[in-house]
């Protein structure tokens, strides 16, 4: 393993460093500037700090074969298990992306997996890291065809991987079909940091559910660029329940490329202790995207003074008429609600829990039914640590 300090490296030399000259990613990285506070959406999520640490780069190794399985498992930067039936040989291409971590993870990736799915399936994906101080990067590409309904359920395990940074991401092309992409993380303060940067292209009449659930005390970022073609629909939901010194970022850019596409994006944040979160969500409706419908909403509850929320739901519209709504609120637990519940004999802590559970329930219930229980359990688990 070799040491790497990303911020001190020139993108060009990074390419060399990785043993592969990927001009495209290098150029992209240069044009986007390495992730720093100069990048607007990193002003409140300390990507720069994460990249300024010293890591050991997990090396590219030549041949390694993954076990056949019905799951997709990455362990310490490498593919460990994969469903052979879906592995495809098609090549990998990176897209233009607003986020500098995206080309960076492409550039550094030591593992690239291509999948092609043409039938209804639930794919569980597990990201495991047990190395300390390591930098891992890998990418997954997925093509959905033949009207298939695909559910991706992504989980993370990084408790033992303190000081590690895992840059990974998906490049999804929904050609004909639908995707439910559910990412559930329980980041721990001493655990590895997973940063997912994704690109999803939703072809005409497709459906995309992009749902992130972050429940914990550590650092995690979910970044996505989603492009919507004609009559496609996107539902994005983000639930954050963070405590201690957690830092959680949900950064999305949803672009309506063509007409009659619909976006509905909802987020709920509950922040405690010194937790901070950023919800930076841009929906852009391009000039060819008439008949767009866009609804964006964020609600945040801060449980104490030290918690900090930056919510930036934004609309950027290049058409004359559309159906849109847009809002964001931040507040505390309503004392009237709290008193009402306590006055029925429910003790204060339980009453607060009831209110918070109610607050987040809507988003939990929106998850595909296969995931609801798991998210509920993660939520309970975090509550129990209080």
């Amino acid at each position, binding site marked *: 393993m070799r040491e790497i300090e990303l911020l001190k490296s020139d993108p060009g030399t990074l390419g060399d460093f990785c043993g592969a000259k990927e001009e495209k990613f290098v150029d992209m990285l240069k044009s986007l500037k390495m992730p720093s506070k100069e990048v607007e959406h990193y002003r409140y999520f300390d990507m720069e700090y994460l990249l300024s640490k010293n890591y050991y780069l997990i090396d590219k190794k030549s041949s390694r074969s993954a076990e056949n399985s019905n799951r997709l498992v990455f362990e310490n930067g490498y593919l460990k298990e994969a469903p052979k039936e879906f592995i495809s040989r098609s090549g990998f291409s990176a897209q233009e992306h607003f986020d500098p971590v995206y080309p960076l993870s492409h550039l550094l990736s030591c593992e690239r997996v291509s999948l092609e799915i043409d039938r209804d399936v639930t794919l569980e994906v597990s990201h495991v890291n047990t190395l300390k101080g390591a930098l891992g990067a890998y990418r997954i590409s997925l093509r959905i065809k033949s009207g298939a309904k695909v559910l991706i359920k992504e989980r993370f395990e990084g408790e033992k991987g303190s000081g590690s940074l895992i840059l990974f991401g998906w490049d999804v092309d929904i050609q004909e079909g639908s995707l439910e992409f559910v990412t559930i993380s329980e980041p721990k303060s001493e655990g590895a940091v997973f940063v997912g940067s994704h690109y999803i292209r939703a072809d005409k009449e497709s459906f995309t559910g992009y749902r992130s659930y972050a429940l914990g005390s550590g650092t995690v970022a979910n970044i996505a660029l989603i492009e919507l073609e004609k009559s496609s629909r996107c539902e994005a939901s983000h639930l954050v329940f963070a405590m201690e010194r957690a830092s959680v970022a949900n950064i999305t850019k949803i672009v309506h490329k063509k007409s009659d596409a619909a976006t509905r994006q909802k987020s709920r944040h509950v922040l405690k202790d010194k937790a901070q979160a950023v919800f930076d969500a841009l929906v852009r409706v391009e000039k060819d995207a008439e008949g767009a419908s866009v609804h964006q909403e964020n609600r945040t509850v801060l449980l104490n003074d030290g918690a900090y929320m930056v919510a930036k739901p934004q609309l950027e519209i290049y058409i004359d008429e559309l159906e849109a709504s847009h809002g964001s609120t931040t507040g505390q637990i*309503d*004392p*009237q*609600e709290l*008193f*009402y*519940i*306590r*006055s*029925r*004999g*429910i*003790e*204060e802590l*339980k*009453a607060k829990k*009831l*209110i918070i*559970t*109610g*607050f*987040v*329930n*809507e988003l939990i219930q929106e998850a595909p039914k296969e995931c609801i229980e798991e998210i509920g359990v993660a939520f309970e688990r975090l509550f129990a640590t209080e």
Partner: protein
Amino acid sequence: MIKIESLKAAIGGKEILKGLDLEIKKGKVHAIMGPNGAGKSTLSKAITGHYEVEITGGDILYKGESITKMEPELRALKGIFMSFQNPVEVPGVTNAYFLREALNAKMEFEGKEPLNPADFLRMAREYCEILGMDPKMLNRSLNVGFSGGEKKRNEILQMLILKPDFIILDEIDSGLDIDALKAVSQGINRLRNADRSFLIITHYSRILEYVKPDYVHILKDGRVTKTGDYSIVKDIEERGYSEIGERL
């Protein structure tokens, strides 16, 4: 049941209750009437331990014990219940779940086994029927989008399920149509017995025709200015509060 002795209470630094005395007897129904802003809701908030109310003097004894420093949930567990003048909405928490949590908290407090969900639901549905409530309301978020009348019925549903010992009904009759008023009154009468006491706060005699009070009090400017039987209600209706006050 309840003995209130020269109670002084303030909201936001403003004194609202100014030395109020009131005794509520076991098994009796007391009604309180009085002009807007007299302090009726403040009194019920003081009894239930609302965070806005600051007790600045006097005492409230419940079953012989001073409760002014007790947490609201403990007061509830010991049998005090108030139906809110304006019940709040709690999004995302279903009515049924909330009711069961409340009931189980009480059962646990009394050292009893919690009710299983099926039995609970059967009971809740039965009470809904008595109150003319659609049982579907049990699956909706607590009070969210309920009409004024539905909220009031829902308060009575909670009362029926929790079967408290001392029940304050703060304007339970306001905004109810005649059918709802009958249903709500039926719910109240159902719980009436020799051990339970009620304090009904109202502006109208109508509910008191369905739920006959044993005593009627007039609360004015932070004090109980008159106590008597049902005949006071007629006096108020005929002459208004100002004249009655002047006679004292």
